[in-house]
């Protein structure tokens, strides 16, 4: 599971450099995200622009990351491909997460928050 992280004063952005988050990688993804975000207080942006496939296990892992960040730390998403967007829409998770069109938009939004 390759994740590319950039830490700024107010926001940590994480780009998923994999074409899928599925049942085979969901647990690993969740643990990597926990390590990356541990100790900080910044907002977190998760960029899914390279992810072509997300199943219910992958979705569950993203929800788990939001939960482990706690109520005071924001997790926002960016760059959903059409297939991934469909999974969010069908499970109504598109109403739980703020979703930005691009990583740049998400980071700009987080930096101004």
């Amino acid at each position: 599971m390759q994740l590319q992280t950039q830490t700024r004063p107010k926001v940590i952005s994480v780009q998923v450099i994999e074409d899928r988050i599925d049942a085979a990688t969901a647990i690993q993804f969740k643990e990597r995200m926990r390590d990356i975000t541990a100790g900080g207080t910044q907002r977190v942006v998760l960029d899914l622009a390279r992810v072509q496939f997300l199943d219910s296990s992958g979705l569950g892992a993203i929800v788990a990351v939001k939960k482990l960040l706690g109520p005071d730390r924001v997790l926002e998403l960016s760059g959903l491909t059409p297939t991934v967007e469909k999974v969010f829409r069908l499970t109504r998770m598109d109403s739980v997460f703020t979703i930005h069109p691009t990583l740049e938009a998400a980071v700009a939004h987080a930096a101004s928050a």
Partner: protein
Amino acid sequence: MLPAHDPFAQADTHDLVLRADPLSVRSALQSITSVPPVSQLTHDQRATVELVLAEVLNNVAEHAYAEVAGHVAVTIVLVPGGMACEVVDEGGAMPGGTLPEGQLPDDALAEGGFGWHLIRTLTKDLSYRRQRGTNRLNFLIPLSDL
């Protein structure tokens, strides 16, 4: 009397037997989507078929074979209106002998319970039979613009 029409008796079906574990499911999905009939679909249709099969096969791996390892067989065939699918395994039976309702969890931050919701939303004619130690799941993935 003629036997009932069986779409799976046709020649242009794609059959696959795989070990029921997440990595085998992933490679099975890659092989199913890269050959006919699924490879001939549009990008969106292929994505729908891949998602439904991922949910069904990972359920088998996670639940039917929760206690022991085993295999699962997938057969898919293009029929008028969609992709007919049959998934057969020799794992444990569905609890209560019926399929989950697939209602979304009430908790907005539930980490599970999405799988059957996706399957029920993206398929129709879902049927489940437990017979002589096997689970047999049949469903149609409607592909409206075929």
